């Protein structure tokens, strides 16, 4: 069994958050109201769960609306956390 990549982990955690688990998730799928419908409280849950799964701690300076807008943004955010 291979270790999950960050992208796979992000997609898996997003899928767990959704009430429609069959939704199509691409790196650029919007997480918010114009896409998967994850609101700010859902985003908090998502980010804290990603931190727990990956052991990475996010930092303020990398947090932007863009970073939290798509799966690809979350992957970049985690990669930046890993470089600290």
């Amino acid at each position: 069994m291979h270790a999950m990549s960050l992208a796979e982990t992000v997609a898996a955690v997003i899928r767990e958050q959704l009430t429609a688990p069959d939704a199509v998730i691409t790196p650029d799928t919007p997480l918010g109201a114009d896409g998967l419908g994850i609101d700010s409280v859902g985003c908090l849950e998502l980010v804290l769960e990603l931190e727990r799964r990956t052991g990475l701690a996010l930092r303020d300076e990398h947090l932007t609306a863009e970073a939290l807008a798509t799966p690809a943004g979350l992957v970049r955010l985690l990669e930046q956390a890993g470089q600290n």
Partner: protein
Amino acid sequence: MTGIVPAVAASGLPLAWQLGLLRGLAATGWRQRRLRQWAKEHPQIARGRPWCRRAWWGVAAGGVVQRHLADPRRRLAALRLLDEPDWSEFDAARQAGGVIVATAHLGPPKFLMHVLLERRLPLLVWTNAADLPAWLPATTEATFLDPLLPAERSVLMVKTALHLRRGGVLLGAADMQTGGRSRERDSLGRQWHLSPGLPALARRLGAPAFLVLALWRGNRVRISCERIEAPATDMAEEAWEDAWLDRYWGGVEDVVVSSPENLRFLRGIDAGRFRRELGT
């Protein structure tokens, strides 16, 4: 100069006398017809003429105090109205980590923020930063994030979580809907929309929370600070957050029912006329 508020504020009388003068005027029922009409339509909140007198006084006194706060020569007189609480339980909670100060849109605005800024706490405030009055103390320890900006709401929630995890203090209100989701409470003959953000942070981070309000008590502004007891840890997520909001709302509802002078939303009743009559 139009309106009673500017006239009283410019009278040169000591502030306590000005507030007393307004109380005397309130007792005459002057310009309270609109409040009486509102009271008839909201019998579960408003009860009779004594309620109207206190509500009117709260709007007028708030206007006079705001004028004092805006004037550097008279600011101190307004700030001397403040009675601070015993912060010992709050300070003890801070020793263990981040703490949530849950407030509400009640009582004279920004007094609580002033006190917390003066205490030089590592503070993150959910507020419209463009609306901050100049009389608040300048500080480099505080961060201001606007919960009403839809594009930034997720950033606000995550930044707040990181702030609490670092042992910071959050000042925010849960008595209005700020995002797409809200929790409704049917109470006092109407529906209230509460924000789920604070309980979500309290649950996920295990952060202790206090209901902290700056309220008119007589002619003084008293800050109350009461612990919001955390619900049982074995509850389901949504039930936990609802229980947390019930405890928060219980404290807010008490104020709504018992002290009309602290109902800030009354300023919105036909606000244009209030502004013309009171000059606020």
